[in-house]
């Protein structure tokens, strides 16, 4: 049995107002272009003017979210563990296009260096002078969850207090949107992103992006929420997923009724509707079902935004109305279960406890 991972801080740059001062998720941001981009921030806070000029959006938002998270927690990291579906894909596109256009001559190395999947981790280590454990997972829609799993392994191994900076990040580019559109990722009809989940009878979803970071610790500190359990599932069918949910509940001494909030990764894709409903349907009327991909879009590490939201719900004991799909809560929120399916069919379960 793994130890709880206390969430000491969470920082998220997303298509919504989720970062910095000011009210969260207000005003709501939307798009009708089939993709959502992050609300850009002042990245000069944590990145030098020299470095910032050459950096892609992904690097800027990820480094900033990561550094802010550490500042919020008031700790130095003992490990930096991240996940990304495609890293700095705009740098990759840039270098690749130049290479083709310039016929392999006179290329700018900056794009190549930044296109490496671990470049965000390298920068974060550099900025924090953290010479300890440093890992980058690149396993499509499970990249972020695998980073959490590694954080769990790391905390289990520790005898002393450990503060782990764990995160997930991806960026949406026009090219990426075109490429994945060819294999049916996106809705064909033009919709308002905030109404994504009302279009659940057609195929496809909308694209998104974001950078979410967390300081996870074996020390409770001032944490108000903790990750109690975590499970990744490779292309599960309905039965396998439901068994995994039951098993997780049982291992944590819970029954379905104990779950106060189910935070679903439902993405408005008719092809995946059955899978999502099979998960949320296990909790009857007792649980409030919430969703988030109409706010951030779908991307490999969208569950990072999900965890940011989950932490906010549990910590503040308040569910943003825009996320509620069914059921209304008036009593305390003690247990929240995240159920996510990725576009490629993988799934993950994350159980959060409130820390009283």
């Amino acid at each position: 049995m793994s130890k709880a991972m206390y969430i000491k801080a969470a920082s998220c740059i997303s298509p919504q107002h989720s970062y910095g001062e000011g009210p969260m998720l207000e005003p709501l941001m939307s798009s009708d272009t089939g993709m959502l981009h992050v609300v850009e921030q002042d990245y000069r806070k944590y990145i030098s003017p020299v470095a910032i000029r050459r950096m892609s959006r992904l690097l800027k938002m990820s480094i900033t979210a990561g550094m802010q998270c550490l500042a919020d927690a008031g700790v130095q990291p003992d490990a930096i563990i991240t996940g990304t579906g495609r890293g700095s894909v705009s740098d990759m596109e840039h270098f690749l296009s130049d290479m083709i256009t310039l016929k392999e001559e006179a290329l700018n190395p900056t794009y190549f260096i930044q296109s490496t999947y671990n470049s965000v981790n390298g920068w974060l280590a550099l900025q924090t002078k953290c010479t300890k454990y440093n890992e980058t997972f690149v396993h499509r829609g499970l990249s972020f969850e695998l980073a959490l799993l590694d954080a769990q392994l790391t905390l289990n191994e520790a005898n002393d207090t450990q503060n782990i900076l764990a995160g997930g990040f991806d960026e949406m580019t026009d090219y990426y949107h075109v490429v994945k559109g060819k294999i049916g990722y996106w809705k064909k009809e033009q919709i308002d992103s905030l109404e994504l989940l009302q279009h659940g009878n057609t195929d496809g979803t909308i694209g998104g992006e974001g950078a979410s970071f967390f300081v996870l610790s074996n020390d409770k500190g001032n944490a108000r929420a903790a990750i109690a359990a975590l499970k990744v599932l490779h292309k599960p069918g309905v039965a396998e997923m439901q068994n995994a949910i039951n098993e997780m509940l049982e291992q944590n001494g819970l029954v379905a009724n104990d779950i106060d909030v189910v935070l679903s990764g439902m993405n408005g894709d008719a092809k995946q509707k059955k899978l999502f409903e099979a998960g949320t349907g296990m909790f009857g009327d007792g649980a409030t079902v919430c969703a988030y991909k109409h706010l951030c879009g779908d991307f490999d590490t969208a569950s990072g935004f999900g965890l940011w939201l989950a932490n906010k719900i549990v910590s503040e004991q308040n569910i943003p109305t825009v996320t509620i799909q069914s059921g209304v809560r008036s009593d305390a929120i003690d247990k929240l279960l995240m159920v996510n399916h990725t576009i490629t069919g993988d799934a993950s379960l994350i159980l959060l406890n409130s820390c009283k």
Partner: protein
Amino acid sequence: MAEKIVVSSVGLVTALGLGIEANMQAMRQLRSGLRHPVHLQTIHAGEFVMGEVEYSNRQMAELLQLPADHNYSRTALLALVAMQEIINSFDIELLRKEPLALINAGTVGGMCTVEDLYPDFIAPGTGDYIRYIDSLDCAESTEDIAAYYKLKPLMATISTACSSSANALMLGARMIKQGLVKRAICGGCDALSRFTLNGFNSLKNVAKEPCKPFDRDRVGLNLGEGAAYLLLETEASAKERGARILAELSGYCNSNDAYHPTAPSPYGEGAYNTMQQAMKMAGLQPGDIGYINAHGTATINNDIAEGTAISRLFDGKIPYFSSTKPFTGHTLAAAGAIEAIFSIAAMREGIVLPNMNFDTPMEELPLAPNTQLVEHVDIQHVLSNSFGFGGNNVSLAFSAL
């Protein structure tokens, strides 16, 4: 005392050939795999030697008995071919039945395929190329391995540049220790691509001639390709199935330079700490190490940093060390796993692999790697180093059992 994690099966393909025997034989005969590439289509083919795997994609597809319309990139083909040796040495039902992890590593996934098709990818319309559209993801090869061999493992894919597959081994060991899985197949795969070649070339650290690790006159690395996997399990699990144990993975450390995005500290702080911590975990003193398979890329920066770290750590009593990259080229994400296998094989066969092309010690550091094949050496413990971009360092310690 925690259970020992052991290596009980390995498989690899490199420019030296397919399988551990072919690779070791080539190195015993001082036969390098470096040559001008014939499969990689690049305007630089006549300019640089590389460690290109001899097989064409078609030959690998035949080895794997794939249908003509398969959608495997060269990266995935290398991975599948390398895995054959492990699968053939194993009761595959056991791998299917008992909890297994598959930890793979890559730096650019199927870029070798994508770079040919990219203009089609981003243009309007569709075509036959659609089946390759997901091949850029590093996780594609991981899922290809599981699907081809009908395994249902817990999968993860790591990308920490040149230390990627060393990290895969470390993660697999940790998962077994914590009881997440019973066994883990860990390694990495990377195919040569124009993207990578031009990337390193834009950094001006690719050598045209065979590389000269730790030499004063080194000018850069040779790129290579390959794939390698090691099967990890507990000693008890290996014994329970009567397996031959190749080595114990006795120590490991992942650390970061936190110095510069692409260059190590010239004092080799990162390399020093990583090796030291791996040895500490294994309970080893400097004098216990019989051989170090160095990262030794032959870039100006790596070799001075790694060389300095080795001289400091082993202060006056430097063990045999060599870089095997003049044989294979720098195989990036596969390098950690390939060189882990070389280190284990060297220990088992009691030989020290030569560092080819070394003539003159570096001026800053009078340090000489082992340049000849040395036989009949009693080696009980080895270190295998992998240092990468982003300051990502890993050292692995293997011990004889």
